[in-house]
């Protein structure tokens, strides 16, 4: 039975898994899990991933969640080129360090940014108030500083002169606010240059294909909510982005 990857390309880690598999010619069956339709919450999906999140992998009877784990598993099983997850101890450690840090730091920040720039304006009928976003912007700047000064420094990529899993997870993550029309790398030429390098290393066509879902116009169905529900959702989102 073929390898199955359960993905919604709106989600950052799903895009990383998708791009990695495609870029390395790994054969897989794409199983779409549409988050916006709540497909991740079904009992059926729960059998694949009881955590009810995406991405998930199914390889025969073996199931796996968490993009960090999935990416490493694919790299090992399909013996992808060394630079993705280097055998050199120190380079590998750089990748591990980034993978560990990113999913509780950059992921959350970029998701909040998307909410602030795309969703809140829909609910409010106007942009979210800047004072509300002050803390978020501060957090974003700290993260960008760390990306530049600690994880990249004067290297072309996180682990050295070649792209790795770290760059892949990073680049898809920072694309999320772009889905809301907001470029976090504006005014940061070093990071913008890194992003171009990563896109090129992955292949522009594949990169664009993977991001089509993010840029597609989405029907959030906010108009189907009652005024009270809408108000509650607005308040929740305002709290979330602070």
């Amino acid at each position: 039975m073929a390898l199955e990857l359960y993905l919604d390309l709106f989600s950052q880690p799903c895009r990383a898994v998708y791009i990695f598999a495609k870029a390395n010619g790994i054969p897989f069956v794409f199983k779409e899990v549409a988050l916006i339709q709540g497909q991740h919450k079904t009992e059926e999906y729960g059998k694949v991933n009881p955590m009810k999140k995406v991405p998930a992998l199914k390889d025969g009877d073996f199931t796996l969640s968490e993009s960090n784990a999935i990416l490493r598993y694919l790299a090992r099983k399909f013996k992808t080129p060394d630079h993705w997850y280097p055998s050199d101890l120190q380079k590998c450690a750089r990748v591990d360090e980034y993978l560990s840090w990113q999913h509780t730091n950059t992921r959350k920040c970029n998701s909040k940014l998307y909410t602030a720039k795309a969703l809140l304006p829909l609910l409010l009928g106007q942009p979210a108030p800047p004072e509300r976003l002050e803390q978020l912007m501060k957090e974003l700047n700290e993260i960008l500083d760390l990306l530049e000064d600690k994880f990249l420094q004067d290297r072309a990529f996180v682990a050295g002169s070649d792209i790795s899993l770290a760059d892949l997870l990073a680049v898809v993550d920072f694309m999320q606010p772009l889905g809301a029309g907001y470029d976090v790398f504006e005014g940061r030429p070093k990071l913008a240059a890194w992003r171009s390098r990563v896109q090129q290393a992955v292949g522009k066509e594949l990169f664009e294909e993977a991001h089509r879902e993010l840029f597609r116009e989405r029907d959030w169905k906010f108009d189907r909510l009652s005024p009270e529900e809408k108000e509650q959702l607005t308040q929740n989102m305002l709290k979330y982005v602070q």
Partner: protein
Amino acid sequence: MGLELYLDLFSPPCRAVYIFAKKNNIPFDFKAVELFKDSILGTKGPDTKSPEGATQAGPGTKITLTKKVPVLKDEAFSLADSTAILLYLSRKYKTPDHWYPSDIQKRAKVDEYLSWHQGNIRVQAPQTVWIKVLIPLFTGQPFSSDKLQRVMGEMAVSLRQFEEQFLQDQPFLVGREISLADLVAVVELMQPVAAGCDIFEGRPRLTQWRKRVEEAIGKEVFLQAHELILNIHKLSTIQIDPRLKEQVAPTLLKMLQ
């Protein structure tokens, strides 16, 4: 110069690194970091930028209570994340296979746990110590039972997932032997215990698992690593400069919101 490990045993990830190094007889220079003194006074600390917090704080600069430990320094190479450090040590010192199994599916399960842990237990467990001990220490106010209840509720959900999805009816998280997953989990779960919230109580399966993990690690090393945190009540006698209390209190009170 050799391997240096900058650790504060108050911190769960530091305990994981400490135990792993000790258990595997990895020679290292223990560089003690005292989170409170050092992050507030910016006195000591490794010369590196932590991925989890701000850059090295000097006296008078931005006060940060975010973690700057553990840090590994191996000659010119430095690493500032506990997962990365554990993996690096296991590879460099070729530790027994069960810690990070060469079987790719078992290894993937360790990766999966370590990743999930960071977004769940790693976030919740330390909050018990903050809420019950540290914040009252710095602000002079009684601890917030509402906030504690909320965190314990979140922990209950995580622990249920821990038992039902990860541990299930296995002796350890990934099969029949202890791995990095168990190590990282157990040190974190000791944090609420130290705060007086025994999350093992009423959870027999979890308690049995903890016993097995302690035994596999070695009771002596386990106790040694946890001596500091288990004597946390002694912190209340620490003299904290009132000016520092004043500076730090607003940040802490915000944490309670």
